[in-house]
């Protein structure tokens, strides 16, 4: 299957720290791929490198056949890549509605998508006029995902969607992300292997800034040795 995104020998520095030391993988279109690895392995930096927020020093990022690693991050995002960051980054001074409106790339984007978004996250409809500060952790996560859905994004980069959420809310999130994967490709960073294995079909393991292993997540579930070595899951 044709990959929607391909990373070739990515080397990224933050300041003088050599964070990514050769990340290479490609993700197939229309599926969920999980980026796995321990804390500080470079998963979040990989997402930021794809988006050009921490541009790679060498290496190539190919999105839909087009090299994007030399582009500015806002141009990269405008190609159709949505980002849901780890800390959610909900804009405090903006209402829920404005948090969604700001993600519009064309006027009326939100109008077109709002039924789909409110269908996915009914809570947001109720909270629409509340300021971003007043949301709980789960609601913030829903808003962060919803924000990435307003524009027509063919690739979603979702960083740690389950972090710090109650189990009930995690289940809701898993359901939502599954629904999303019908329309867009998703690259998911997830510490919680149980969540990742419920969502993703493919995986890539990153360890100390290098991509080590990739394959079908179904195979990984039974590969106790790999799980223990790279993910600390027994």
């Amino acid at each position: 299957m044709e990959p929607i995104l391909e990373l070739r020998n990515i080397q990224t520095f933050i300041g003088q720290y050599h964070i990514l030391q050769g990340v290479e993988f490609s993700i197939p279109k229309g599926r969920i791929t999980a980026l796995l690895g321990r804390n500080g392995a470079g998963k979040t930096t990989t997402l930021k490198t794809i988006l050009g927020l921490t541009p790679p020093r060498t290496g190539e990022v190919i999105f839909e056949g087009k090299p994007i690693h030399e582009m500015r991050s806002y141009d990269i995002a405008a190609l159709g890549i949505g980002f849901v960051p780890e800390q959610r980054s909900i804009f405090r001074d903006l209402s829920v509605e404005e948090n969604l409106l700001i993600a519009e790339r064309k006027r009326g984007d939100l109008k077109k998508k709002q039924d789909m978004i409110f269908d996915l996250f009914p809570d947001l409809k109720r909270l629409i006029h509340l300021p971003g500060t007043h949301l709980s952790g789960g609601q913030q996560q829903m808003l962060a995902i919803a924000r990435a859905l307003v524009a027509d994004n063919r690739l979603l980069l979702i960083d740690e969607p389950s972090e710090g959420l109650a189990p009930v809310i995690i289940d809701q999130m898993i359901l939502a992300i599954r629904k999303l994967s019908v329309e867009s490709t998703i690259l998911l960073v997830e510490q919680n292997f149980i969540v990742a294995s419920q969502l993703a079909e493919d995986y890539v393991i990153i360890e100390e800034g290098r991509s080590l292993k990739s394959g079908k997540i179904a195979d990984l579930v039974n590969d106790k040795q790999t799980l223990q070595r790279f993910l600390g899951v027994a």
Partner: protein
Amino acid sequence: MKSLALFLRRNRAQLLTVTVLLFLLVVAIRGMEPTDASVTILRGLSVAAVTFLVASGFSLIFGLLDVLNLAHGTLFMIGAYVGWMVYIRPDTFLDILTPICLIASAFVLLPLWDFLANRLHGKKVVNKLWPWIGMLVAAALLYYSLQAYPITIWDAGVYSQSPGTYSLMADTGSRLIPAPVTFGAASPMLVILGIIAGSILLAFSLAGLQTKNSSGQAKQTLRLPWTFIAGFTALLVGGILILLFNTPLTTLIVGLGSNWLFFLAILVAFGTGFFLGSFIESTLIRPLYSRPIYQLMITLGLSAVGIELVRAIWGRSEFTMPKPEIFNGAGENCPATSILGALRDHCSTIFFMDSRIRIYNEVLIPVVGVLVLIGIWLLLKKTRIGMVIRAGVQDREMVEALGINVRKVFTFVFALGVALASLGGILAGPSMGLSASMGDSMILNALIALAIGGLTSYPGAAAGSLLVGLLQQFIIKYGQIGITLPFLSEPFMPSPPLVPASTVLLMVIILLVLPNGLFGRKE
């Protein structure tokens, strides 16, 4: 009910401070005659409005860009001087408009120059060298052609032709416009061509300086929207037309009268500020976003350069700026008793609670301040760019990750901030008078106001300016009438140095109680 209690508990320090401040205000008002109090409050509002114009721009820039623009006071001052030129010497303004239009027209085509400079492939040495040689040649061309270009200007060294004299004459109604300078021996055609060629070469060389010339770069395509070409043509043709019809245009613009000229001066000062701001941000600040110390140094340096430049052109002496006629009359019906009457008879003062109020200083300036307050508030709350600004203040990276070009917004905010300062300058000109150092006290006031209000908070800028303005005026007034204090045989008269000191003291006290200012957010 529950949320109200929560609100009270969360903000008790703020509420307490505001209560104490209100109490002090009441005490201060009760301590003087009602007429004195009303005048003092209005004067305080006037100072507050000007402070707010400087402070709000400063805080917008600091909030979004994290740049402390130390040149803000100087840009306030430049706004006043540029406005003065349009207002008092519109002929000079028209004269310099032509070269400005011609130079600007070359820079409008920057995308084209970028494209062409990228196409130039040569040896590495040549690539590095030609922009500098080009700039030298361009500078020489511009120097000679601009020198030969006739500009009718004042002469600060000669009393009868100094800016102050022109101001005085305009005030007495005998606006004197000297005979225009002509091209003399130089050929007008050559001079104009020299300016155009020089500025095109300059723009081209600057574009060449920025190209990276990396071999692996993908081939650029030329993106030159028709608006750029239209802008280029409009500026070029406009500049030449202004030159051709200089004499009739001068007669026309001088004939507008001081009211319309002042209005024009406000527009030009605002526009100049906007242009200067976008120019400074895109050329000097942008390369320095990751180096805050250098930003401080460059804005501090800019402020010194600006002050000396103004001194070189306008001279070192201070001078006044007359108020526009509509606020400067003293007919038999003046002082007026109502606003309508004041507007009808063009009175400079009006009776309000048995005391005379200067309409320009104490009515117009606060009204403009409130209008700007509302305008910027609407911009921030009701427009998309305002939404992006509010979001960008908190998290620039996330805004960019949504596909929004934050750099454009940065330039806009910097330009808007500087434009507001320039607007403050031209408005303060008639009430404060013009001096090259008028920006220094203003930026100090603005910084204190911002520290009081919370550095990046917009309502904070307004509240801080209000406090600073009121406090200063009350101290000045009490300096005249004295405060009766217990255990003192004579009333205490605050001396003039206590005026700025009192605001600093207020800032210190408020920051001790509320380290983030009145409206600041806890980091």
